[in-house]
């Protein structure tokens, strides 16, 4: 029977669709089965691995014995999946031992090769893994990946470099994150913070060089100083802000003198970050005069100045704090009131007086802070 061509087409389409549907269904079932079997096998394997790994850490097994067991499984992704939580949580001797095991078992070589894999996933995961393993020998490969146009690679490389703690890559990573990604401040700072406290030394040296109280000696410090001098397309205040935030994050007290000097001639954005850093560090440079900042034109500076006042307890600043209770910005009023509430009996009395003597913003905020203090 010769079929109408349209009907013939429809029948073909039906076969294709039905075939695809059955294929999808089969795929669902098979994927589930493979996954279950795979997980079962992984669990069995990791039970053995755990005994071996713990025994090795305890010194009951040699490196070669332990590595042999891991190598036998012939699955590096599973090996990494098992070892990753330990690598990320352990430090010192424990970490060194675990890393040695990874090297002996061939894991590090495996991922080094994967850095040049065709697949985006494999490359990116390799970058992340080598970073977690603090493999500084991969720094040059990761730096090359940092210059990629693919944001996944930039992220993986930046994370890998930061996790490795190799500060020689700090300046370049910063520049790439700021220039070639749409990362927010917090996003860039968060990744850069993984370089660790070592980066603070370089940052402080650069700040000291900028304020004339020191010199930038090594290439990293010099690069950072270039950033602060605006030698690329990013405005210096962005770099200042980022670096100062990192100093605050690590509570790097050694940077206080440089920060104090910088605050005197910094632009308002940088000033904000300096005051924030004082807040995080929990102190101000000795002899630092907070009063000009309590009178600053920019409300964010006033707000942070009120917050850090407690580290100076400068009684001469109390009238300025009192003025800030009527500041047009809520946050400034809030922090000024808080500072006063923590300024001992004088401050509390002043606030109580404000609730009765005046009306409007100053009275409202004083009432609010006093009420919050009661609640706490």
């Amino acid at each position, binding site marked *: 029977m010769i079929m*109408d061509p*349209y*009907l013939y087409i*429809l*029948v073909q*389409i*039906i076969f294709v*669709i*039905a075939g*695809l*549907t059955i294929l*999808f*269904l089969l*795929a*669902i*079932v098979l*994927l*589930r*089965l493979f*996954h279950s079997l795979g997980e079962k096998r992984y669990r069995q394997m990791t039970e053995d691995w755990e005994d071996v790994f713990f025994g090795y850490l305890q010194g009951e097994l040699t490196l070669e014995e332990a590595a042999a067991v891991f190598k036998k499984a012939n699955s590096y992704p599973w090996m990494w999946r098992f070892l990753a939580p330990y690598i990320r949580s352990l430090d010192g001797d424990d970490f060194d031992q675990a890393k040695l095991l990874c090297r002996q078992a061939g894991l590090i070589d495996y991922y080094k090769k994967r850095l040049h894999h065709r697949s*985006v*996933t494999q490359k*990116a*995961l390799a*970058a*992340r893994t080598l970073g977690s393993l603090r493999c500084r020998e991969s720094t040059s490969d990761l730096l090359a990946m940092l210059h990629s146009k693919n944001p*996944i690679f930039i*992220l*993986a490389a930046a*994370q890998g470099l930061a996790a490795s703690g190799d500060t020689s890559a700090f300046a370049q990573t910063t520049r790439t994150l700021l220039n070639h*990604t*749409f*990362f*927010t*401040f*917090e*996003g860039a*700072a*968060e990744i850069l*913070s*993984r370089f660790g406290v070592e980066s603070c030394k370089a940052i402080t040296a650069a700040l000291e060089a900028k304020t004339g109280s020191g010199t930038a000696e090594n290439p990293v410090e010099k690069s950072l100083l270039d950033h602060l001098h605006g030698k690329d397309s990013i405005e210096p205040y962005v770099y200042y802000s980022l670096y100062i*935030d990192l100093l605050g*994050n690590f509570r790097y007290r050694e940077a206080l003198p440089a920060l104090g000097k910088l605050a005197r001639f910094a632009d308002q954005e940088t000033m904000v970050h300096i005051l924030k850093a004082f807040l*995080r560090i929990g102190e101000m440079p000795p002899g630092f005069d907070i009063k000009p900042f309590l009178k600053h034109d920019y409300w964010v500076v006033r707000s942070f100045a009120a917050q850090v006042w407690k580290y100076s307890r400068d009684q001469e600043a109390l009238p300025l704090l009192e003025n800030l209770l009527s500041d047009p910005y*809520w946050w400034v009023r809030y922090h000024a009131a808080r500072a006063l509430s923590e300024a001992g009996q004088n401050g509390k009395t002043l606030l109580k007086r404000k609730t009765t003597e005046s009306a409007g913003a100053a009275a*409202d*905020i004083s*009432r*609010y802070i006093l*009420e*919050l203090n009661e*609640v*706490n």
Partner: protein
Amino acid sequence: MSGWAVFFIFYSVFIILYFIGLNGSYLLLVLLSFFGLRRSRITQKVSDRVQTFRSSFYKPLTIIIPAFNEETTIVDTIYSVLALQYPEFEIVIVNDGSRDNTLAVMKKQFKLRQSARSYNLDIPCGTIHNIYISADYPNLVIVDKDNGGKSDALNAGINVSQFPLFCNIDSDSVVDSAALLKVIDLFVKDRRVVAAGGTIRAANHCRIEDGHVVEARLSPRFWVRFQIVEYLRAFLFGRAGWSAIGGILILSGAFSVFRRKAVVDAGGYRPDTVGEDMELTLRIQRVMKSLKRDYRIVFLPDPVCWTQVPETYRGLRTQRRRWQRGLAESLFYNFSMFLNPQYGAVGMISFPFFFIFELLGPVIELSGYIVFLVAIYLGLLNPPFAILFLVVAILLGIMLSTSAILMEEIHFRKYPRLRDVLILFIFAILENFFYRQLHAWWRFQGLLDFLFRRRTWGTLDRYSFSEKNMEDAQS
């Protein structure tokens, strides 16, 4: 040739073209979403979110929960949100003039006291009577206001909120602990992002403990199973596909995160629409474009918000009518985006798609059934062709749903039992035989509601999560 015959030929051609357009688009969306999901998965694998969360660099967040007559669920909701692991956030519950004991229940449970906290009226909203703070939970704020509807409540919440990002979670939803973090991460990694959303899944009959979905279970309820298949389609290939081309039109009201400034610039939620989430998403895009700001609206498939879906015919019908009306209102109020190249993929692709296939779809589908029956009666139909065409349509529907289930299996595997997944496949078949037609009818009614401005609000049946869990445990 009779007039009917001519009409029928033209109509058939139209239906075939419409069919090709609709299913061709869906197939394209499936492909796009496949690559989009893959890319999203790679980025998720590479991002070390745990560390991000444990650092001191994050964006603080306000979670706004509008509440109206929620006395049975509000305490559970608040506790589940309080249990969220996020470095810094505040919760703003907006009691929208509840007529039951919602406020009293909160006052007692959380030891509320009146607060002198002030706020700016960045967005016009109804009168706020009082703001309360909790003695036990310093980050919990309750706003008590006159009834003004969900949009108005949200606007009041935004006014009171203090953080640069806010998240709107419905009061009957449970958000995954890590879900919030994953969505916020988008804002941190890309400063252009103004809004982002995740996936919604049915919480009905899932095992929930202390505000966490501990085990995803397939509800035994008939109507819920259909909805689960629908939601998988809508999110796993619908939104994922649109997101891949930058054409997101809707973020779910149940769980979406916004940059406060962008929403304030856009004027807040619109009070006179039932599709306020959709309408806001569209308006933000219009405003961003007019301000010439580079922006992104992103959908992430991985973070999940579990929400109660209607379990009864009536509840589902009311909801779908309301959604269709919301869609109509949103498209109507933002019609300047239609085929407007200024709005990129949204204006040229997704807006027209939603207008033609989602909004007018029910009209075309229902008219198709009517014309089909008339054609049979008049003997105009070529039976083999019609039957085969119908078979193609049904099979395509099944295939698309199966592809969504497959994507769920590849990327998420939320249902631990294979049996549940296979049941979903059966419902993917069944839904083509009456559910889809019923759904088209409800959506048609919703469209009529919009055209004749009918105000049918309806109330969804409410079960407290903990009560439901007890029931489940005993059954």
